[in-house]
């Protein structure tokens, strides 16, 4: 779980940075980018499973979040607004490039084996080692419905509270709880399915 550095007394608030950015101050943009690039990247990476695509989504998300500031002002924080836009940008990118590419996280370590082959190999009931587990969790996450996946990733990776996830996605806290429940159920079921001989 991770989150960007929280503003403190020595750091300017997001609101101040946004005002400076609107005034054309380059340093304000750089500060906002540095402050939130990590949680934005984590969210995008978990949704896409690929570093280059995740960076594309981060770029797209920052640009859209900052060119449509009227979409959040007065209703949420910049962080939740940004993560919402980055998440949507990642999902759009994932749809465009196809779900198969989402599993490319497995490829660096097993360049000679495509994910489908890897999954078949992993279905022999043997104990999971760390690499197996990683591939299977990635696969299980990619199989979640988008709404559940985005909710789960915002909570588990961006470190947002239920309230912040609700604010980010424009849904109720009850819906957040429900989506998290179903996401976890499915993740557990998919993992159980994989390890059962």
């Amino acid at each position, binding site marked *: *779980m*991770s989150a960007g550095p929280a503003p403190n007394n020595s750091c300017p608030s997001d609101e101040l940075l946004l005002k400076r950015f609107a005034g*054309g101050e*380059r340093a304000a*943009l*750089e500060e906002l*980018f540095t402050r939130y*690039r990590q949680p934005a*990247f*984590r969210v995008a*990476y*978990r949704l896409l499973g690929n*570093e280059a695509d995740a*960076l594309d989504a*981060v*770029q797209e998300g*920052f*640009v*859209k979040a*900052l*060119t*449509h500031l*009227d*979409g959040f002002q007065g209703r949420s924080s910049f962080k939740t607004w940004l993560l*919402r*836009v980055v998440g*949507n940008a990642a*999902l*759009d990118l994932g*749809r*465009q490039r*196809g*779900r198969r590419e989402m599993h490319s996280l497995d490829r660096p370590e097993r360049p000679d084996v495509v994910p489908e082959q890897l999954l078949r190999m992993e279905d022999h009931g043997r104990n999971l080692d*760390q690499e197996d*587990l*990683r591939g299977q*969790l*990635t696969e299980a996450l990619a199989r979640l*419905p*988008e*709404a*559940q996946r*985005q909710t789960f990733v915002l909570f*588990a*990776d961006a470190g947002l*509270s*239920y309230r912040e996830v609700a604010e980010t996605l*424009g*849904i109720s806290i009850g*819906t957040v*709880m*429900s*989506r*998290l*429940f*179903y996401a*976890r159920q499915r*993740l*557990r079921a998919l*993992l159980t399915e994989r390890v059962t001989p």
Partner: protein
Amino acid sequence: MNRPWDREPTPEQLAAYFDGELPEPDRVALEAWLATHPDGRAEVEALRQLHAQYDALPVPEPSPQRWDATYAAVEARLAPRGRNWTWAVLVAGLAAAVVGVLALPRGVAPIDVEPYPVVSADEVRIISMNPNDHRALVGVQALELNEVELVTHPDMEILGGATEEVVRIDDWATPMLVDTLALGGPR
């Protein structure tokens, strides 16, 4: 004094306990309930194991060069105020003037909408465009981006429950997440 947890907690409440999201009185009460209910403790333990596995999944750290490249791209797209600012404004003004001149003889009113670009231009084929659709949803058939069309509420079926933002459009087989960001029309 804290009230006892006198009912079977829902799975969502157990998850909220695990996530540290219960108000303090509820947390204390549920903790007391768990002390006498092994099934509940097993559920919480299963959540802990799932998240331990998930947290063990590495997220790579992009190199400083990649971060720099990403920031440079963001800055370039957001700040057309560089050294070529004057030229950029002149070119943009000229382009706008040309578009205006071309549009005027046909009597076409300029469209001042800025749809959220969910797909690139190469992937879009406008099937129909009705003036009444200017605030319609942009419908995209998931996974197969062969056709994109504007759809209005009568075209959609809301799938209820926890996924109320998921809609099915016409007879498309794949429900898609609909978000306010996907709304076309003026902002």
